[in-house]
């Protein structure tokens, strides 16, 4: 059933893209295409209506394609948008980074993407030669092994808690599935880490961030990281250390997190692209909770509401700035 829904969406993505290009409504379609290894997809840029069969849609489509949009791009662009891609577009419009009129948002419902890092840990350094997703199973084939994993356990945690499966704003919506009512997010998934002592928390952060090699794939994949010069690249004078030492890694990831607070659309691209399999979602998810609780704000939902970091109210809660413990 799930498989059929996904295949149908893929089919309509191709048809819609073809039609939009043929009718001259867009100059370019940005979508997903198959990667050269199993469970990997990549971005796809199509200007030729005869090539829309390159477009795919499946649970390995983990990039946030909004990254490929830019303010100074004059082309008319149709973009395949799952919920979080749509949210990123909306938020970027709010931050005046995109021209709404140039973008055709082709909304598709998304049931979540795979957590490839978790699968790799489970498989244990073996090469996956073939991977298939049936309804609730991931079927993995290697040279001398076959493994079936329950799909639900390997869906990205952010996708499980995501309650915007389709973009909040779309020009075209594909797929028959009616959007479900947004679930109430109780942030229960954070209980485990929140209940840890400060010492255990820091140990957990260290364990994760120790592996960082500073390739900046997280930053480069993040639709909200569009600064011309990132704080970490400031070198006249140098602001922060650029080594892969744990203290420098910690500072980089925490400050980047501060910079996306109230802006992060919980797409999980930062974690998905990490070659070292670092789970960065634990930081972004906590930020999402703080922003929701403190400012009752969710990024990328409305074109009208200004984000907390982009506005100021005299009654903004600020006890955290003077809080002592």
């Amino acid at each position: 059933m799930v498989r059929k829904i996904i295949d149908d969406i893929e089919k309509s993505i191709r048809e819609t893209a073809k039609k939009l290009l043929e009718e001259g409504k867009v100059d370019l379609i940005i979508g997903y295409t198959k990667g050269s290894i199993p469970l990997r997809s990549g971005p796809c840029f199509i200007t030729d209506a005869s090539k829309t069969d390159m477009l795919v849609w499946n649970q390995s489509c983990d990039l946030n394609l909004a990254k490929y949009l830019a303010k100074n791009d004059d082309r008319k662009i149709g973009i395949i948008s799952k919920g979080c891609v749509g949210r990123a577009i909306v938020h970027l419009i709010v931050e005046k980074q995109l021209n709404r009129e140039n973008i055709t948002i082709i909304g598709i419902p998304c049931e979540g993407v795979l957590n490839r890092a978790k699968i790799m840990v489970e498989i244990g350094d073996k090469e996956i030669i073939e991977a298939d997703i049936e309804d609730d199973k991931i079927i993995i084939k290697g040279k001398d092994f076959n493994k079936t994993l329950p799909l639900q356990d390997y869906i990205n945690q952010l996708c499980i808690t995501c309650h915007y499966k389709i973009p909040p704003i779309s020009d075209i919506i594909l797929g028959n599935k009616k959007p479900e009512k947004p679930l109430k997010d109780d942030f229960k998934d954070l209980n485990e880490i929140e209940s840890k002592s400060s010492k255990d928390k820091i140990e957990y952060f260290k364990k994760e961030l120790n592996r960082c090699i500073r390739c900046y794939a997280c930053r480069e994949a993040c639709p909200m990281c569009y600064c011309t010069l990132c704080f970490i690249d400031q070198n006249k004078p140098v602001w922060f250390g650029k080594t892969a030492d744990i203290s420098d890694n910690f500072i980089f990831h925490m400050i980047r997190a501060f910079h996306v607070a109230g802006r992060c659309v919980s797409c999980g691209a930062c974690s998905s692209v990490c070659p070292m399999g670092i789970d960065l979602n634990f930081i972004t998810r906590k930020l999402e909770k703080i922003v929701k609780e403190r400012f009752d704000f969710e990024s990328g939902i409305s074109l009208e509401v200004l984000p907390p970091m982009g506005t100021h109210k005299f009654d903004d809660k600020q006890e955290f700035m003077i809080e002592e413990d």
Partner: protein
Amino acid sequence: MVQKMISKEKISDLIKELQKEFKVFGPVKEEGVVLFKEITDAKEICLDYSNSKIPAKSVLFPMIDTLFSYKKEEKGVKIIENPPYEKTVILGIRPCDSMGFSLFKIFFSFGKYKDPLILNRLENITLIGMGCLEPRTTCFCTSVNGGPFNKESVDVLITEFKDNYYLESSTDKGEALIKKIKSLTDADKGDLAKIEKLQKDIESAIPVIKGLDSIHTKLDGLFDNPMWQLDAQGCLGCGACTYLCPTCHCFDVLDENKQDGSGRRIRIWDTCQFPLFTLETSGHNPRTTKLPRVRQRIYHKFNYYPKNYNIIGCVGCGRCIINCPVGSDIRNIFMSVENSSSKTEG
């Protein structure tokens, strides 16, 4: 050439013996990721692995490399040199990664200025390589002068066969080393012929990419070809491909100062994929967009290396394919080069 063997169960004995004389590095699995680390406990080594996430170059060329330390004194500054590099064995390095070591040697000793740090380490490192019984589908070592059992750049090559590891020396250094290890016994002559056949079978099963031997001349005419735009448009501009490449060796040098007047000069990994890499003090940047950066990676390995050192700057490990966040595949670039160059010629 000396051929020896040891039962797999006794690998700890071999490691313990090596540890008496050497610092031993080997593949270790941490949080599901295989990396080359110093082996303190022989049980930590994970020899049943396909290839490490970060190439073994991290031993020779660490992510943070102290060049020297210093301390401010009443009169001037005192320079504190690094302690001498200990004799080191890297056990279980794959032939592709060891080929990377050979390329490091060429690069860091080329021309007028030598890199004493790297060259001294290379002198003190003995490579005990491990042949690949299961090359990945992304491997193409045989297309770039390598092979899953290539002995050229290791001192000793291990081949796993049944319950044993077979060791074969390929340098004097390697021969001297395995001759004196007591836990090794003479190789079972009956198995050696079978091993040779096994090696040949595995090697010939790796698909060969045609035309890589002449890729540098084809690239000569493609610098301004539109193909680079196609590759650049999806690239995120991260450093995964280069940082995880066994031959990429670019670095940045910086000083870390402490408030007490002491500090160190370090070099850290840097990459041509970052805009800052080519930013000049004047403010001019010759590679402002992704296109020239994407192209640079290919030209450096497949055009400048052959021209400068008469060797391809790629060992075919496939890490850039596996780890690219956007699924870019260097083999597709080879294909574009082939197609574009035949078009240009025609």
